[in-house]
């Protein structure tokens, strides 16, 4: 579904953010990507979704390179950033319609999906208001709804639980499980190790741009907690 092959990224200021990263995310995988601040998580995510260009390595979505056919790849995925800056001068529904128009989602389908998720996140009554009046959590919820509007195959989430209230965080977790149970794949970064441990079947740990562990959750953690394993690996690797 999603394959990262020997991906490296060096910024213009000379900083090597990621070095020779290899990852494979299969259908139905709920894949957590963890690491310290500045380890290279967001760089990797931004390269997958096409925000950041890169010279070395390749990223394939359904076997197609994001460099060669970015439009096809972007149609398969949905991305939710950690701090979504949305168009403040649009109303919530105008923003959702813009994203649905970009994905060419028919009217009936978008109405069904938006209604479902807006109800789930208790955002329906706010959708006719301007985004400028939304709180951080509401913007996050709106970004999640916009990500689901075209029924993507892969979800790429950067710190998806930041700013969400407990009920919304629970709904997002349920949505993620349901999404993967229906054959979708999720690749997300998080600092909340308990959530990653409970939710995910696969995990990758990155330190200073290099992968230091990757595999099934049980194989990585064994009898220890993910927190212990993470601290052990990042301090001694």
């Amino acid at each position, binding site marked *: 579904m999603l394959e990262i092959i020997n991906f490296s990224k060096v910024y213009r200021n000379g900083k090597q953010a990621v070095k020779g990263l290899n990852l494979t995310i299969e259908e139905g995988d709920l894949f957590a990507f963890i690491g310290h601040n500045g380890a290279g998580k967001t760089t990797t995510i931004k390269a997958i979704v096409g925000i950041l260009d890169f010279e070395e390595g390749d990223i394939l979505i359904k076997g197609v390179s994001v460099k060669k056919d970015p439009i096809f790849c972007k149609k398969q995925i949905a991305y939710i950033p950690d701090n979504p800056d949305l168009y403040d001068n649009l109303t919530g529904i105008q923003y959702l*319609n*813009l994203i649905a128009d*970009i*994905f060419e989602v028919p009217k009936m389908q978008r*109405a069904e999906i*938006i209604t479902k998720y807006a109800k789930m996140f208790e955002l329906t009554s706010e959708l006719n208001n301007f985004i400028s009046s939304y709180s951080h959590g509401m913007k996050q919820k709106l970004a999640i709804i916009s990500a689901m509007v075209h029924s993507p195959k892969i979800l790429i989430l950067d710190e998806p639980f930041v700013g969400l209230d407990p009920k919304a965080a629970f709904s997002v977790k349920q949505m993620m499980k349901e999404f993967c149970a229906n054959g979708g794949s999720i690749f997300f970064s998080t600092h909340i190790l308990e959530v990653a441990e409970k939710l995910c079947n696969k995990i990758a740990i990155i330190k200073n741009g290099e992968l230091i562990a990757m595999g099934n959750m049980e194989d990585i953690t064994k009898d220890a907690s993910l927190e212990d394993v993470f601290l052990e690996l990042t301090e001694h690797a």
Partner: protein
Amino acid sequence: MRKTWRLVYNYLLTFIGSFISKRRNARFAVGVLFVLGIGALMVFLFTNTAIATTVKFAQLGVPELAMYSNSFMAILIILFLTVMRSALPAKTTDEQLLLSLPIKKTQIILAKSLFNYLFDFLSLLGILFPSYIVYAVINRAGIALVFRGLLITALLPLFSNALATLIAMLFQKIATSFRNFSLVQTFLILLLIGGYVLASYALNDYLVSNTDLNAVLNRFKPMKWIMTFVLNGTLLSLLWIALISIGTYVISISLRVTVFGKEVKSYRSKKNDLNFNAKAPLWSLYQKEIKYYFSVPIYVINTIFGAIMYVGLAIVLLFIKQQTIIDIMSSMNIGASGAELAFILAAGCIIITTVCTTSSAISLEGKHLWILKAHPVKVRDVFLSKILVNMTLTTIPILLVAPVLGIKYGLANIWMFVLIPFLASLVIAILGLYFNLLFPKLEWESEMQPVKQGLSVMVSLFFGFAFVILPFVLYFAFLVNRINYLWFALMLLGYFAVWVAGSYFLLLKNGKTQFERL
């Protein structure tokens, strides 16, 4: 006061940091030199004008008229600064941080205001202050006059800052009662600018038509105070100027302090039904662009006046006899038949190409750029949506004006009044976008930074002027008596068409790569 100055220093550091933190390449250095060059040129031009005016009036034996002219300029500048500051209501990103620190609200507001004041003061120092130096040197008026001029230069921005704050607060109060509050705010600011233009004309008309200087000064006190203080050091005049400047400044600071940190009331929709209408991606992007354009007052102000002036030009031409234009051209030794049409086309093209929304359109995406980059939007559609906004603003006046000019200058010539300005505008729209891709300014706190201070905006403006004027200069210099104006119009059409094709190719080829690199 120590904390206030520390905050001002902090804003200065942030301002300087925004220039030097990210870009250290040669292109950036060229950009900085370009901006500094423009600044130096402005100071040079204003100083030169001041020298010419002062020498002229000194020779006529009425040197005080030079001071009268300077005072008039000072009044116009403070009104202009007021209007510009009103169009840029203060946006803060550090409000919560500062409120959580042990600093008084008054100190915070004062620091923010002084930082703005600093820019206005420096502008006046370059524009107005040289005229006082010139006056003192030419008329041997002594150093005291220069110091008094400096004091006036320092006091006036306080008034413009204060008045702008009061106007902006009033506009915000009115606008937030409406659903599309940002559109209402833009409209109110356009009204304010219209008012400024009318007031400037009225003031100018009044001052020019009244030959009795004393009568004028007695009628229009602010000018009298400025003049009598700078010329004679009349303390009562200074008192009045200080009272008005500092008084309004204190009031504005107090009012800002009362609202600082308070939640801004925003309109809440009572509509419950949701509209799920589907549109083509390009159309949807275009609608987003149009909404954004009209919701940013400074963006509108900086770009729409060319369109308004284009209509104004048609109105003026409607009332001017064709023979008058022919006579003007004859006085320049241009007597060829139809050359007046080329003259009108030149004026029209120069005016319409000042409308360039695209030269800051990419920069204005700012933090939202991820939306366009992470979604399956064709880069071509992004470009077209931005070009279409520009063309909407120019095509409407072009289509309105063409029949009017056709009636006056021959219906058979309508095609040239439509196609030539349209193509000229299209070239600038495309190239403006390309320049913005070359010189993007994606990190900003206020829209003023990319719209007014962006390098791409300045490059587009200068390039646009040069590229439009070139064929007309060549025509009037070498071809006017050799070829029929119709042939020139056809050549012009070809010239712009080639530029459209070339620049569009450049945009899709290099511009696309630049966009992907952002």
